[in-house]
Structure formats: C-alpha cells, structure tokens
C-alpha cells in the first residue's frame, strides 16, 4: 500500500467528520473518493496530506504508520495535493510559478531560467502536455492553471497526487485531457487520489473507488466491480427523515423566470436558459451538486447580478432590470447561503441584523429618525417567536451559535410575510434541532400561502420539504420530479444523468 489510513477519526466539535476510517490506495492506481457534501472526503484528504491531524488512528505511508507534522512532512514522503482554490501567484509566469520556492539559481541569486525551462520541458515530455511557459498565470485559462499545479507537484518530486474535485471547473474536452494525463501518470507508477461528484468520469478513469457517507467509508471496491447506479445508491443511502404531508393549496404564480442565461467574468455561460416558476403555497426545490449553477441562479433571481438573457417576473411584474432593493420592495425575501459574509453582519448587534431591510418601514421611521424603542420591541417579539436564545439583543450576532444565527436570518426574511422566499442552503452549519426548526418555519410559511424556492445541496432536506423538485446540472434544469419521486432517480440526475 502506497498510502492509507487505519482507524482515523477526526471530530470538529459535535461533528464527526471522519469516523474510524480505514482506507488503502496502491501504487500505480487511480483511486476515486466519492460521496455527498459533508461525507468527510476532504477531511480525509487533508489528513493524508498532513494539513490536518486525526484525533485517533494513523496515516499509513508505504505500509508504515507515520505521523505527519504538516504539509511539508507529507511532501517529504512524496505526497502532494492540488486544492480546489489554486495556490498560484498572479502576475508571475507559468514557469516562475513552477519553480517558485525551489528556484535553480546562478551567480548573484539570478534564477537560472535555462535550467528551469529544462525542468519544464522534462515535465512536458513525461506528461505529454505542452504549455506556453512565458504566459502569466492571470492570462492562463483555468485548465492550464490546474495542469500547472499538477506539474508543480511532479517537479517537486511527488508521486502521490491528491486532487480535490479537479473537474469541477473544467469543460468536457478539458476533463478528457485531464483524465488522459492522470492515466498516463498512473501508468508511470504514481498514485492518484481524486475526489469527485461526477460518476461518469469516476467510472471512466479510476481503478478503485471508495464511497464515503457521513464520515464513514461505506465501501471500497474495484471500479470494474460496480456501476454508476450502484454508486449513486451507495452515496445517497436511505433517507430516514419523515416526509411531511402536503397540506396547502397551490395558488397563483409568484416568481417566474424565463430562459435566463448568465455568463461569468471569463464569458463562460454558467446558466443556460433556465425557466422555472414558483406559486403561492408550494416549495419548489433546486436539487444539485455544488457548482452546477445554483449561485448564479440565486444572484440572477435576487437581482444581485445582471442577466445576459431572459426575464424575471415577481408577482406578475417584470423585475428583470431591477436590483435587489426593488425586488425586495416587490415582495422578495432572500436567505443567503453565506451566513457569515452576506446573510448577517456578524460584528453588528442582533437588533441591527434583525431589522436590516425593514428599518425604513413607516412604523419604525419618522423624519429619518429610527424609533429604536419600537424596533427593539418588535425585534425582541420576533426573535422570541423564533426562539432565538440570546443574552441580550444588543450583543453582536456573531456571538450566537450557528443555529441561532440562522434563526435570526430566517426571522428577518420572513418578517412581514413576503410573497416569495428564496432560501439557499437554509440549514448549512446548523445542528439537528435547528434543522427541524428551520424546516418547520419554511413549511408554515408555505402553508400561510408563501412561495418558496429552496436551493439546497442536502438531498434529504429537499425530499422532506419540496412539493416539486427541479434538478440542476451544468447550468441547466435536467429534470423535474413530483413529490415522492424515487430518491435514486433524483440522485442519478444530480450526478450527471443516470436515469
């Protein structure tokens, strides 16, 4: 065994990210690690790479138990990792990035460019890829940056390469190239571990596959001995939550999007003409693996970013050209997926957070002055009805637990009964009691006649709450399912179209 783990357990507070994990990867193989969000894949990889240490259990390298004191120590044993956020320096050329921190030098500390170039050519020969080494990293497309990261690991002598969702940012042709490169490196005797959500590529390239769920290894097997359908089943597991009975009547359409397209800064189309509608009294869920266009859809619907094409209607009014302020005024509420950076202002007080956006209501404002007494009264009553545990409402909201923070956010968004709520990852970082409470809030809001667009990566949550499910994949809605649909069918769509 080239690299592995024996009984590795890692806890973060109440959460057990890795629960007595046994894992083995052999030299000269490509080993895929698959699993849903929060399955514990990244934690395991960080432990194998020395960036994190297990609470118990050991890392095994070359059949020997080792203690890795850090990433450098892992590197000394030939283990390197490509992170999801690239560790490249903008403004430097590809070649400079390749040799940075291990530059060959001539006299006077001058970097020996010829020697660096020679090293680069040698890498090119070994891997069969060709790069324009004089290009600056900022100008390089994302797949080139990724290859550069891999080459840098090789340059520094790594023969165990850990890749964290390497294909998430790549186009299909680039994925094929990357896969070819990985196979080639494998054939030269290197060990490759890669994390992925996409079962097609996992099946296409890997020799071994390990499925993780809830911090445990569910099964490790040879790729030849399994199928996409089986993998999807193993990843998703059985849903244990009760499905809440659907009560309310569906009314008129509140939120409507027609063929909306969004392009990113690199002119890549991230949303490819999505249409959807949400009516009073229903929860419509967007199911999908992270990075398939959910963020772009959210900012397009809330008005935080501009559309390239398409049209957004709110309560039968065209709001395509309006920003978030006007859309909120028209009845939209938005529960942000990023609580710390966008959903709340952690350094401001609980009151200041709970009133944001409502503070200019007539009851709270006279002649530009805030009626602080009335605001405090209102907020205290509101937060009490959401059972927010707090010592005083004047404390910074950042002092609250994650679950209570989210209650403040949801209380604010549902305050004043908006026509429509876009709820993104509403239970992210919330414990089990908090999750149940937030679900209850969403259901009650729906039963009062609210329209909810629920965007979540938690399949369980979607199955529990949704009246209709839209599956998003690669910037498109690839399927619509009714309530009570087969879990595996949803999972299959999410993972790239296993039907």
């Amino acid at each position: 065994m080239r690299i592995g783990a024996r009984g590795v357990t890692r806890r973060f507070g109440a959460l057990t990210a890795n629960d007595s994990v046994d894992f083995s990867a052999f030299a000269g193989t490509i080993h895929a690690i698959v699993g849903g969000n929060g399955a514990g894949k990244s934690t395991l990889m960080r432990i194998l790479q020395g960036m994190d240490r297990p609470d118990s259990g050991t890392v095994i390298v070359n059949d020997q138990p080792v203690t890795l004191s850090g990433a450098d120590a892992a590197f000394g044993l030939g283990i390197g990792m490509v992170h999801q956020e690239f560790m490249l320096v903008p403004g430097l050329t590809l070649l400079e990035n390749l040799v940075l921190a291990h530059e060959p030098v001539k006299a006077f500390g001058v970097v020996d460019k010829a020697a660096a170039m020679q090293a680069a050519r040698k890498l090119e020969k070994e891997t069969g890829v060709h790069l324009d080494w004089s290009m600056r990293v900022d100008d390089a497309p994302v797949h080139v940056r990724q290859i550069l990261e891999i080459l840098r690991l090789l340059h520094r002598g790594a023969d165990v390469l850990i890749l964290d969702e390497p294909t998430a940012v790549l186009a299909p042709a680039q994925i094929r190239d990357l896969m070819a490169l990985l196979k080639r490196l494998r054939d030269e005797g290197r060990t490759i571990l890669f994390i992925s959500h996409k079962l097609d590529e996992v099946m296409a390239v890997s020799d071994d596959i390990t499925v993780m769920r809830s911090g445990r290894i569910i099964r490790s097997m040879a790729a030849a001995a399994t199928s996409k359908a089986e993998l999807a089943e193993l990843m998703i597991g059985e849903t244990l939550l009760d499905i809440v009975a659907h009560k309310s009547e569906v009314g008129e359409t509140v939120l409507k999007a027609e063929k909306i397209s969004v392009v990113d800064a690199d002119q890549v189309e991230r949303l490819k003409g999505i249409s959807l509608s949400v009516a009073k009294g229903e929860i419509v869920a967007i199911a999908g693996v992270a990075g398939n266009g959910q963020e772009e859809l959210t900012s397009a619907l809330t008005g935080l970013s501009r559309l390239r094409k398409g049209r957004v209607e709110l309560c039968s009014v065209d709001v395509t050209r309006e920003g978030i302020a006007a859309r909120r005024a028209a009845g939209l509420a938005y529960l942000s997926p990023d609580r710390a950076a966008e959903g709340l202002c952690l350094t401001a007080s609980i009151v200041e957070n709970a009133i944001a956006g409502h503070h200019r209501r007539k009851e709270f404002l006279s002649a530009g002055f805030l009626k602080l007494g009335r605001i405090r009264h209102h907020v205290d009553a509101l937060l009490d009805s959401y059972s927010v545990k707090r010592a005083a409402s004047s404390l910074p909201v950042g002092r609250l637990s994650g679950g209570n923070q989210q209650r403040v956010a949801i209380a604010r968004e549902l305050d004043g009964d908006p026509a429509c709520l876009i709820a993104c990852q509403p239970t992210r970082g919330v414990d089990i009691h908090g999750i149940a409470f937030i679900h209850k809030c969403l259901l009650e809001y729906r039963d009062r006649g609210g329209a909810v667009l629920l965007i979540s990566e938690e399949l369980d949550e979607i199955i529990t709450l949704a009246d209709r499910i839209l599956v998003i994949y690669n910037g498109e809605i690839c399927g619509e399912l009714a309530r009570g649909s087969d879990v595996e069918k949803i999972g299959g769509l999410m993972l790239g179209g296993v039907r």
Partner: protein
Amino acid sequence: MIDNVIHAALVMTTPVLLAAMGGLINRIGGIVNIGLDSMMLAGALVAFIVASNNGSWPLALAAAGLSGGLVALLMTLTITRLEAKEIIVGLGFNILVAGLVRFFLKTAYDTSGTLNLPDISRLPRIDIAFIADIPVIGAVFSGHDVLTWFAWIMVPLTALFLARTRPGLRLRAAGAAPAATQALGLNPLTIRDASSVFAGFMSGLAGAYLSIGVVGIFSEGITAGRGFIALAAFYFGAGRPGLTSVGALLFGFFDALQIRLQGRGVPAELVQTLPYAMVIVVLTVISLAARKNRGVRS
C-alpha cells in the same frame, strides 16, 4: 540655460528617485509605504551629523541608510506583526519622526529649525573630462555626485532584481499571493519586512542627498514632502521601475522648472500640484481599463 535646467532637474530627481525605488520594492512586497518621508528625514539628519563628526561622506551615507532602515523596521513590524493599518502607521511615523528630529535638535544642539555644523563632508561631484563641455550631454552625464549615479543605476538593477532573481521572484509572490507563498513554505511577512527595510535604506540615502549632497545644511523641513512625491512616482510607475524613474524625472523636472518659472509669471505652486494630479489621473485610467476588460459586469 537648457544645461542648467537639465542639471537642476537631475538634482531634484535624485532624492525622489531613490525613495521611489525603495517604495516601489516595498509596494511590490505588499506594503504601501506612506512613511518614506520620515525615513528620509531621519537619514538626512544622521548623514549630516556623521558627515560633520567624522568628515567622511561614505560613512555618512552608510549611517543614513541604516537609520532609514531602522525607522522602516519599526514601522514594518507594527504593520506585519501587530496588524496595524499601514496608512495610519505611515502617517503616524511621519508625525513622530518629525517631532523626534525637532526635539533632538533642541535638546542636543539647542537650535530650532535649522542645524549648521562645521566641516561637512559633502558628496563629491564626478566631472567627466571631455563630456563635461559638450552641451546637453555634459549636463546629463557630468557634474553629478555618487548618489545620483547610484540612483540611476538602481533603476535597471531593480528591474533585473524583480524580473530575474530569486529574491525578486519571491518578493513578487509575497506581495501578490501571500497565502500561496506561505503554502510553498516561504514566509511572506519576513519578505515584506525585508522590502520595507530596503525602502527605509533607500529613503535614508535620499535624505542624505538632501543634507550633504545639495545644500550642506540641515533643516527640519528639508524633505519638503519629497517622500510623498516618491509615493506619487511609484504610483505613477504602476509597479514598473522604468516608468517609476520617468515619473521621478518628470517630477524633478517640474521641481526645477517651477523655480525658473517663478520670475516669469507662471505660478510655481500650480506646477507643484502636477505630480499629485497625475497620480489621480493614472489611477483612474488604470481602473477604467480594468473595468473595460471585465466587460459590463461591475
């Protein structure tokens, strides 16, 4: 006439260029050094005292560079280790050092404002035979002191340093992507500190040029805000040594020009605003260009 203007412009350029090269390196390392003026002032005073006591200009230069470096070291440590905002710390150091210098003048020399010391060892001028008498070329190349030569030699050296050498590469990395630099096992904070000390050293030399190069007298206002002109120069140069030197030369030329234009009805004060106005224009243009590149999204 033109020879005089050229010569005067080069004289005015030298201190700005020295400090701007230091500030440029500092900025590429990730710190905007607003305290250059304080380091210049410290260098000017120390050089002046050493030049009088020891009568040796090389020693005076070394002392000036070291004292500027010491001020910079204190400044950079508060920024990198105590996480203080560089702008405030820079402004604070300008106020602090100016106060310390005047306090010291009164305490040690019982004088306020200016200091006159005997036997100042001035920077020697390098006259180049034959060339000296050629118009224009003579003014450009002859009759300048060692620091002027050093300042101009530093321009290509700085460019080479940044583009070609290992420390230059690491400096750029530490400034542009500290997290990535750290992930590769380098310490970006230490690299930044080193760049600050270099900026202090260069500013100290710039100060020495003012006190023992140009006039042979020290006054509390000797820098006349040249630390900020240097700041303007490296913002004008947008991180490039060559362009920064053009900025410094331009500002030196304005400086020389305004003295000459005073008698001719062109207001010197308006010429003085040009370096600062140019920086605002340059930043605006850079931002507009970046916006255009990004496309419509804002």
